[in-house]
Structures are given as C-alpha cells and as structure tokens.
C-alpha cells in the first residue's frame, strides 16, 4: 500500500521493527479483525487495534453503556452512558485513527446469526462476558475455520488462549461444556479489578497482530492465566483431543446451539 508522510510517521514504530517492517504494516492494513463485546476486554483490544492500523475492525455488542461499565471499559466515557456501546467504541477508534474502517454490529449474537457475522473476518477476539457466548464463539470459529483469541476475567484473575482451528486445541477440547448457570457468580456479585481488563485485552490484541503479521509464536495449545494479586502468570499446556465433540475425529457438534444465558457471568 502507498503511505502518506503522516501515515509513515504514525506507523513508524511498527515499521522500524525488523519483524514487522513495511510488509508487516501492509498486512495490518489489509487485515479484518472482529471484536466480540465492546466491554472490558473489547475496549482495550479495539483501541490498540485501531491505533495499530488494522484496516477493517468489526465490533459486536447489543448493550448500551452503563455507569458501572466505566470502571474498566475504557472505550466509553462518562458522556456515553446510555449510548450503544458499538457506536461509542467506534467513535473512539476512528478518533485515534481515521485511516481505519470500523463496522459496528449493534446486535446480540446467537446460534442463528453468529456464523454469518464472523465469516468475513481473518481473526476474532472473544471479549464476551459469559460462558454460553464463549462456547458459541468457539464453536462458530471452529466451524467457520477462523482463528480466535479466547479471554476471560473475574475478580483478580484472567485467562486466555489462542485457537487456530484444525491446527491447535480448541476451548472445548479442555472445557467440554458451559457450567450450569447457577454455578457461576455474576460479575456484579463477584466484582473485577478494572485494570486487569486491560492486561488481558491487550494480550488478545497482541495475538491478533502476531497472527496478521505472521510473526512470533501464537498462544496456541496453551492456557495462559494470571492472578493479579500475586502477579503470577501460569502457562498450562493443552493438547488437541481426538475425543473433542467439536474438533475431534468423530464430532457430535456439527451445528450451533444456544445455551441458557446467564449474562454477566465472566466480565
């Protein structure tokens, strides 16, 4: 792609990196990334990916901004309370970087519509706040063969893994099904330290950038988790399971189902 002098200056710290360079910035500009959830994880991911110059960024959310979101969902400002989250986030993204195209998807994803939404993207960031939707995103991405970053935070803890369908372990290889709705505390009951949303969401944005620029080693076949109280990070190796009901040798999940929603279980 042709860069203006201003664009070269904007992306200079990427271009200087030997691993990224002009070629890497070209790949970033050509990439399409979908962020599911404009909340705690989606906000930092959206802002960093916009700043990085990802050419097309989709952002999906059906909610409006609530005052209680502002403690961690940094794409939203006080004056945005009551606005659609996707419009609030899109405004901040294009304010940081007018070069990019933001596609706001103001909707709730379900088994009937998710595949069509994700199909057009190169990489998906799961920034959802509940287990049923996390399984839905995993299943849809595996069925559509789209790499994605799983992420979740609760209290002082975060966890993330990257899935490249057909190559690496999927979320369901390890976690077979969503926990029963009453087994999980809701976020309003459990609480979350706001800054850990940034810790996790920026790891997810980094994975998206590594994937599109084809550099480094992705966080595949590994569950990375941290406890912010002790600030200890742990890597648990995962293996793709031939018995996985989704990506195993004899899959039993061949189409999507909606699980009972318990919104806000893992925010």
């Amino acid at each position, binding site marked *: 792609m042709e860069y203006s002098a201003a664009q*070269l*200056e904007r992306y200079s710290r990427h271009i*200087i990196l*030997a691993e990224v360079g002009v070629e890497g910035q070209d790949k970033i500009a050509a990439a399409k990334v979908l962020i599911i959830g404009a909340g705690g994880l989606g906000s930092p991911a959206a802002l960093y990916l916009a700043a990085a110059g990802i050419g097309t960024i989709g952002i999906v959310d059906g909610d409006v901004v609530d005052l209680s979101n502002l403690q961690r969902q940094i794409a939203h400002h006080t004056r945005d309370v009551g606005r659609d989250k996707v419009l609030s986030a899109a405004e901040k993204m294009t304010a940081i970087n007018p070069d990019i195209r933001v596609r706001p998807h103001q909707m709730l994803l379900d088994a009937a519509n998710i595949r069509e939404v994700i199909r057009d993207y190169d990489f998906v960031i799961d920034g959802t706040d509940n287990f049923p939707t996390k399984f839905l995103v995993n299943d849809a991405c595996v069925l559509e063969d789209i790499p994605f970053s799983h992420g979740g935070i609760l209290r002082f803890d975060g966890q993330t893994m990257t899935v490249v369908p057909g190559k690496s372990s999927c979320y369901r290889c390890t976690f077979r099904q969503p926990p029963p709705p009453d087994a999980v505390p809701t976020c309003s009951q459990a609480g979350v330290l706001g800054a850990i949303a940034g810790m996790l969401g920026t790891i997810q944005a980094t994975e998206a950038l590594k994937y599109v620029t084809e550099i480094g080693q992705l966080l595949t076949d590994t569950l990375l988790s941290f406890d912010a109280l002790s600030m200890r990070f742990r890597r648990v190796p995962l293996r793709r399971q031939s018995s996985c009901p989704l990506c195993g040798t004899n899959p039993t999940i061949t189409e999507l189902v909606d699980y009972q929603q318990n919104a806000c279980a893992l925010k």
Partner: protein
Amino acid sequence: MINPEREITATKNLRGVNCPMNLVYTKVAMAALKPGEVLEIILDNGPPINNVPGSVKKEGHEVLSQTQLTDGAWSVLVRKSPQTPKSP
C-alpha cells in the same frame, strides 16, 4: 569487482530527516527494491550516519560503502538482502 555505484537502482535523499524517520524512509525505499538491488541513501552527518547503517545491517542487508560528500552529508550504498529477514 563490480562498481556498486553503477548498480544503484534508486536514491533516497534523507538530508534533514531525523532519526528514526530516516530509517522508516530507508525501509520503505528498500521494500520497493528486488533482492540484490542497490539503494543509495543520503544521510546527514551525526546521529543519522551513526545509526541508520547499523540498523540496516541488523535487518540483513549489506552496507557496501559510506562516502562523505562535500556538504558533510553521507552517501551510503545498501544492497537488499536475498530474503526478507524474519528476525534480526
């Protein structure tokens, strides 16, 4: 021995361009060349000539010569590496 000056494919005048934008423009100019082709960059004396050739070498390219010009600036000839480096 081939005279590299005869092989110059492109010249980028970076007089007055500070670090690190001189490296950015060098990399953009290098990206437009084919492997093995030679780029001439004109760099200011001082930090530019002290920094840019080293950065270019780290990327795997070959610095063929550095010649100071009458105005104090430097002409640096760089041959593009046979393959794109993945890591320095």
